[in-house]
């Protein structure tokens, strides 16, 4: 019965993918811009106090009961290259974006996908992938093209499902599992490309792959580091071998500018992450950068590096935000990013021209006071690490991390979940060759974190307001952000509340104690009703107005 219901729904046409975020949620950020600004305003500042719980839905990961489903119960389809003998401990946690297309929600967690009815959250189908292993840190969501879904698995496969039934169409290898890649990001569908990034903590090169959505054939690959003699950026590495093991993993989705065909994405940290001597003293291009890739051929149009020669595993993978707005008297096509290193940047997104840098964290202390002439922070090597311990802000989690920001054209502000924290960084590997991956250091957190919702003016980089989340414990972990034309800003705090703010000034307007919000809140509209949707662990909570 459930399968038939899904089957009647038409899929996602490519014109829908180009629309600004409103009724549907068609890609990781809702639309290609990364703004997470919804045009919906049925829920607004005036009535948000009346929001009520519409439904709750708890998902269950794993292979299901096996065999044919009983009448009326959704079926679990099982795929995967694993033999079923790998068990991943830990609760199912929804950390990704949830697609909403034609009244159906598509939800993912590592090795799992579900379709739920967007009206009431009841499950329509479930897909489970038997894993070989890999780092199961999260899954950032699915991509959609026509009637087909695409998701990545921690053991490095791109899996395509039929969205109508939950049956697998095909799967194909993204990266080498033996080289310890793990794949968590949400595929981004642009025209006839499925753009897929991956992750790695063992000095392997970061790359994006574009797959054919119909067949899964590889269309192009873009490497974030030089791979061959003569490649641009090679002079910023100690050797070709160092560059080829230099990381730069693009483990979060980018944003897309349909006018220029540029996919704009943040690259990860260089590797080895801490004991950097094997990399040489250079900038280690194109790690910790915003890069613009032409989707037609996978070639890089421009780059801007936000952390030259990072030494703290503070990647710049955060999803960039594309904004068309006034800047110093001219209408400009901009890209905004608040980086894990504690610095905010405004760039021109057609050329990569640097426009603004600011420090958005009061505590960050790893760089010198003055920026260089390119507007980049300049690292203070004494704060890399030290045998006797270096006191560094931020701790490894950074001043911000994967939880996505949002931008409101109504206020001109970028909203970022931020944290201020300290850790002692000890060098533990004295072999002059250094360590691999994340090794060679011990990072001991000083339990002094504070978390904020921070609003940044893209024109100046200045923090216009910030709200310190009140908490009895010292920790980070505020969720990603959503803002709407209803003049609302939503985010999860660090004490288990979903909170609505006035985006102009940070005044709190509403909250609900649903537990630690584990993804960024989202919104959609079906049958004339706007829903606010957030996940807390394995459970989805939808709110709506009933008066």
């Amino acid at each position, binding site marked *: 019965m459930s399968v038939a219901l899904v089957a009647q729904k038409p899929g996602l046409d490519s014109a829908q993918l180009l629309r600004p975020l409103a009724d549907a949620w068609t890609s990781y950020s809702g639309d290609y811009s990364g703004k997470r600004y919804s045009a919906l305003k049925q829920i607004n500042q005036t009535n948000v106090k009346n929001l009520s719980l519409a439904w709750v839905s708890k998902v269950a990961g794993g292979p299901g009961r096996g065999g044919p489903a009983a009448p009326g119960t959704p079926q679990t389809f099982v795929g995967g290259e694993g033999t079923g003998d790998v068990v991943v401990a830990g609760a199912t946690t929804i950390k990704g974006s949830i697609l909403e297309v034609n009244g159906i929600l598509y939800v993912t967690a590592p090795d799992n996908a579900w379709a739920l009815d967007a009206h009431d959250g009841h499950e329509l189908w479930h897909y489970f992938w038997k894993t070989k292993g890999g780092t199961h840190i999260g899954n950032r969501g699915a991509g959609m093209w026509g009637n087909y879904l695409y998701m990545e698995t921690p053991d490095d496969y791109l899996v395509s499902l039929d969205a109508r039934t939950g049956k697998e169409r095909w799967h194909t290898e993204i990266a080498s599992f033996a080289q310890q890649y793990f794949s968590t990001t949400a595929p981004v569908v642009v025209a006839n490309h499925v753009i897929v990034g991956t992750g790695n903590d063992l000095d392997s090169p970061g790359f994006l792959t574009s797959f054919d959505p119909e067949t899964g054939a590889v269309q192009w690959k873009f490497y974030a580091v030089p791979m061959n003699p003569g490649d641009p950026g090679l002079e910023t590495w100690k050797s070709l071998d160092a560059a080829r*093991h230099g990381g730069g993993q693009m483990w979060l989705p980018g944003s897309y500018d349909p006018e220029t065909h540029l996919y704009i994405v943040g690259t990860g940290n260089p590797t080895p992450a801490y004991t950097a001597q094997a990399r040489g003293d250079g900038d280690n291009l194109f790690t910790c950068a915003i890069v613009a890739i032409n989707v037609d051929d996978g070639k890089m149009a421009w780059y801007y590096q936000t952390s030259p020669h990072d030494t703290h595993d503070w990647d710049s993978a955060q999803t960039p935000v594309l904004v068309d707005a006034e800047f110093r008297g001219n209408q400009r096509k901009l890209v905004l990013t608040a980086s894990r290193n504690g610095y905010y940047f405004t760039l021109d997104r057609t050329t990569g021209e640097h426009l603004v840098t600011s420090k958005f964290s009061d505590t960050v202390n790893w760089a010198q006071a003055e920026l260089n002439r390119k507007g980049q922070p300049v690292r203070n090597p004494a704060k890399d690490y030290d045998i006797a311990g270096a006191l560094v802000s931020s701790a490894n989690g950074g001043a911000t991390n994967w939880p996505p920001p949002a931008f409101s054209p109504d206020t001109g502000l970028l909203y970022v979940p931020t944290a201020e924290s300290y850790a002692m960084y000890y060098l533990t590997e004295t072999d002059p060759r250094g360590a691999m991956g994340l090794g060679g250091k011990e990072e001991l957190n000083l339990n002094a974190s504070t978390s904020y919702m921070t609003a940044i003016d893209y024109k100046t980089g200045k923090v216009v307001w910030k709200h310190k989340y009140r908490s009895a414990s010292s920790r980070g972990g505020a969720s990603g952000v959503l803002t709407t034309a209803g003049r609302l800003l939503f985010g999860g705090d660090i004490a288990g509340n979903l909170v609505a703010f006035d985006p102009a000034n940070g005044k709190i307007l509403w909250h609900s104690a649903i537990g630690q919000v584990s993804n960024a809140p989202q919104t959609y509209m079906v049958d004339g009703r706007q829903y606010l949707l957030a996940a807390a662990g394995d459970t989805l909570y939808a709110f709506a107005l009933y008066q």
Partner: protein
Amino acid sequence: MQAIGARAVSLGLAVAGLSAQAQPPSGQAQSPRVITSFRESFPTRPPADPAVVERGKALYGVNCAFCHGADTRGGDSGPSLLRAGTVLDDQKGELIGPVVLNGRADRGMPKFSFTMAQVEEVAAFIHSFRAAGYDDSRMTPPSILVGDAAAGATFFAATCASCHSATGDLRGFGGKFTDPKLLQQTWLMPGSGGRLAALMVKVPPTTVTVTLPSGEKINGELDRLDDFGVSLKQADGTHRSFRTDGDTPNVEVHDPLQPHKDLLRVYKDADIHNVTAYLVTLK
């Protein structure tokens, strides 16, 4: 590229879904490989026959170690093999073999005339080293003690002595620790630095004063606090909770570690190392 969330998962606390996924395929006696931390995410290679590894080690030592290092991690003229894609993707010499037998003239690697059996032996030796992103240190510094104890005593007198005393609460403090790193973490932020550190010093509880609009003040140990409410335990053991709306009622938190937190913005690394050098002398 470790994202946040790693800490919780590495502790491997929650096991929901464990039983559901723990069923091995029927007919296999093999027990499941349980991943409880990121360090265990990738399977290790099954150990090879020690005799084969020994023969590989001998071949490697004569032919390969000069460039690639005795431990396969690279030397002056050859890259690390341990993290090389060809080596990681190789099972038993099928990918390593062609490189060894043909050389890589463009990168200055000569060819070697090994038999296939010898290639497999060398491959087995290389694979006997674990390649891991959470790479354990092999050479560790003997001590973190580099500071000047006298300078540390001066800093302590100026900065810490308003709350602490070397002859009072910190008497014998240095003698409690065998690991100076643990001592350093503990004085920087009591309770930080892991579970063992949390046992070293008893941190007094955070207390809170709630002032009601009437002017009545309620005091107690802080249970829970967020933007919307506060819960506390009073001296008589009873718990009270108050809903808050902005600053009403007023909530004043007394965190005994606040001075330690504020000082994190003040210390220079040398101050920290000096104070540690001083505190270890408090036997």
